[in-house]
């Protein structure tokens, strides 16, 4: 049984989650709190497995709540209506989130995922990554990557490129590591395109900071700082040159 609490300043949102939770067998909502301070106190003796956490709670935020925790021993699912920047940060840190109004299927999927994650118990690292990314909007962002043996935390600026292998993606880093992730290249593209990454080819996403040389041709090809040579799709040539100049 997953023990969960809800932290949200709007009663109707609490009601909505409670309603959705009813139809899940192994999920129990122990309690709900409408302020951060209340919740911080309650966490101590509830020891929940899962927290549904709103981003904006009166004049505080869900991030403030996490910062106030001595140690994090629970999985977090953020709930938010539209905070664009926060969603980006969640994606980076591999922390789950639900968009309000919460759709039933999305809710079921999130609960199923959190059950898997509860087994890994990597809570604090992920939350630290999140808090790090929230405080440094443009600085050195970190990304959480689920791998076969658990989670890997990478500095975005250390990723040279990502290569697609059907539903898997291989990440190449500056310290010559290769990390295989069971996520599509598309998901990395949407995650990293704001961080100076560019998809030059159907199976290649590169960090533009590491482009060493561009050689002309139909689409041409780029040489990266680790001396890999990658073809640029002729359809992407123009956009690529625009991005790099």
């Amino acid at each position, binding site marked *: 049984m997953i023990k969960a609490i809800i932290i949200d300043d709007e009663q109707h949102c609490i009601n909505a989650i409670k309603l959705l939770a009813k139809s899940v067998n192994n999920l129990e909502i122990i309690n709900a709190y409408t302020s951060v301070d209340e919740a911080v106190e309650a966490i101590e003796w509830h020891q929940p497995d899962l927290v549904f956490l709103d981003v904006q709670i009166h004049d505080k935020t869900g991030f403030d709540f996490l910062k106030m925790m001595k140690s994090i021993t629970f999985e977090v699912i953020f709930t938010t209506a539209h905070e664009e920047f926060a969603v980006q940060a969640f994606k980076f840190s591999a922390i789950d989130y639900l968009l309000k109004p919460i759709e039933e299927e999305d809710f079921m999927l999130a609960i199923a995922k959190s059950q898997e994650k509860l087994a890994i118990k990597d809570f604090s690292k992920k939350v630290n990554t999140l808090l790090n990314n929230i405080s440094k909007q443009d600085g050195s962002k970190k990304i959480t990557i689920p791998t076969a043996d658990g989670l890997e935390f990478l500095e975005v600026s250390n990723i040279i490129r990502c290569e697609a292998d059907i539903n898997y993606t291989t990440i190449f880093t500056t310290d010559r590591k290769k990390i295989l992730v069971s996520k599509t290249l598309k998901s990395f593209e949407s995650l990293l395109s704001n961080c100076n990454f560019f998809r030059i080819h159907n199976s290649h996403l590169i960090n533009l900071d590491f482009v060493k040389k561009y050689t002309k041709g139909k689409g041409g090809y780029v040489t990266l700082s680790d001396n890999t040579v990658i073809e640029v*799709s002729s359809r992407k040539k123009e956009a690529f040159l625009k991005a*790099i100049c």
Partner: protein
Amino acid sequence: MRKFLTTLYSIILTCSVYSQQNKIDSLTHLLQKHKEEDSIRLKLLNNLSNYYESSDAHQGLIISNQAIALAHKLGQKDHLAQAYLNKAYNYIAVGKDSLALKLYYKSMAIYTSNNKIEGNATALYGIARVYQNWSDYNKAIKFYNKAYILFDSVGNTKNKAAMLNGIGICQMYSSNYPKALESYIKALNIYEKEKLNKTLDYANVLTNIGLIYNRMEHKLHQALEFFNKALIINKEKDYQIGIANILSNMANTHDNLNQPEKAIELQKEAFEMYEKIGNKLGMANALTNIGIAYTSIPDYEKTILYLQKTLPIYEELGNKNNLSLVKYYLGEAYLNLPSTKSNLKKAEKDLIQASIIAKETGNLEIEKETYFMLSKLHAKKGDYKSAFEINELAVILKDSLNSQNLKDEIVRLEVKYDYDKKAAITKTEHESKQALAKAEINRQKLIKKGAIFGGSTLFVLSFLGILLYIRKRDAEEQRQKAELNAKVSETELKALRAQMNPHFIFNALNSINDFISKNDAVSASKYLTKFAKIMRQILENSNQKEITLTEDLNLIEAYIQIEALRLNHKFTYTISIDPAIDTDNTLIPPLILQPFIENSIWHGISKKESVGHIHISLKKEDTMLVCIVEDDGLGNHASVINKNQKSLGQNITKTRIDIINKTKRTNGSVSNIPKEQGFCVEIKLPFQLAY
């Protein structure tokens, strides 16, 4: 990113005389026979020094000194001026430009006082050449123009063309390619009209056009064509310096074509020829080009080796333009060597010098490239702030060099050139007829008729002028119109995509209202949350021109599901996709199929008693993506036409496809396929891949 700056080139302007060893030999022979110090010997000396300029300039200087001494002795002013000119030519050939400049002015002073217009113009021309060598292009153009006017006044069309060539070179060096091309084409026209298209002067202009094309990525093969034509003429005349220049230029084109080995080979051949003639500028240029070619191999150590050799030569010659280019490439080479402190320091020093000199000479292209390189250097050093700031500078410069505009301008000029050529032919035909007519008139001595004829000629000419003007104006207008149309279509598409939103929102709101009025709160909530999710996706996608088929199908499915929910699962659906289509890599305008599916659901299936079925299939046919939306409902094509009640959504979609057809020159279409029961619509769209 490696961007080829057009590498150095050397252009020797038209010289009135070219190297011909047999002429030198015969003149030397004559001189030995003719020892008397008279004007005949003076003429011989002058001619000889002139011939030596292109084969042995040091000997040329000795001979011209003899000529000057003799001219003083004989008091022959005109010949003295000519001797000064010849000495200046020889000085230029050995790279002593400032000494040459003094002589040009001396010569000009004599010609002016004697009112010798042609000589005066020749001296002005020499002065222009020196300023050009010193990269002071504005001054050079001024002197070329002065010379042009003087040559024009004495009817020396050949030299007029030479001045246009010089002006073109200066414009080319100032990166004003359309203007340069215009000047060259004017020059070519003059030569062709005078039937001088086998001359070295003509070959020079061909070379220069080749040089402009050499700067355009997609015109490199054309550049080689022009160079080859010029090379043939130069070889026919055995003009060594010309051959060397063209070889060097061809080498640069091969470098741009990514054939550095071929480039180095040609460049070394050119270097040997320059060395033989004793042409320092040519030697330095060849060395520079070898250095640059090594960057494409890449072998930066060799690049530095060759480039370093050129610096003292350019400094001695005061050739700032080339100096800045060499410094730029030195900077690049050091930057590409392992990033040790000393290498970075050397790179920074050279690049900063390059940017200062380029700014001084007004060479925007080198200045821009230097900034990009400096920005890279700062990034390498980890100083991102400076890197960013310098990059900004480079981008501003790049905009001012806006290549697209230049390309358009060049296309327009080419059209004009062809047209002018044809116009010239008809004009000569016309002129010969006119000559005949004039003879007739003279015979009859009917002055009145002559006046009428003159008037009609004037009329024809002004008509031609107006025609030309209209052509030019129309071309300009059409270009602007096309640009405007593209913008309008883009905006229209955006507006249409935006219109889809309210259309969809209100349909959904009606459905929610329906649940509420039936007091079914759970269904209303379910429906609302699904609707919210779909709305989010639509908002994200509707400001994009195209999304991947995967994304679009997800959206379509979500849409069908909420409609199914609303109709209490009154229908089933299948989507079949041709295995030849990679949905992740195929682009489609967002939600283009939605209105047809909506039509099937609401006008076909909702009225049916039993469970209906909607089938969506996607196929690839040649260059088209064919989508078919089909149902087994009660609606039929005829009934819809009769009632004239096509949905707003379908009309919008048809307009969207029309605009896509217009802008992409495709033939997308929407057509109804008659069916016994139900609707069947076929939507054809251009098949587009993302990568």
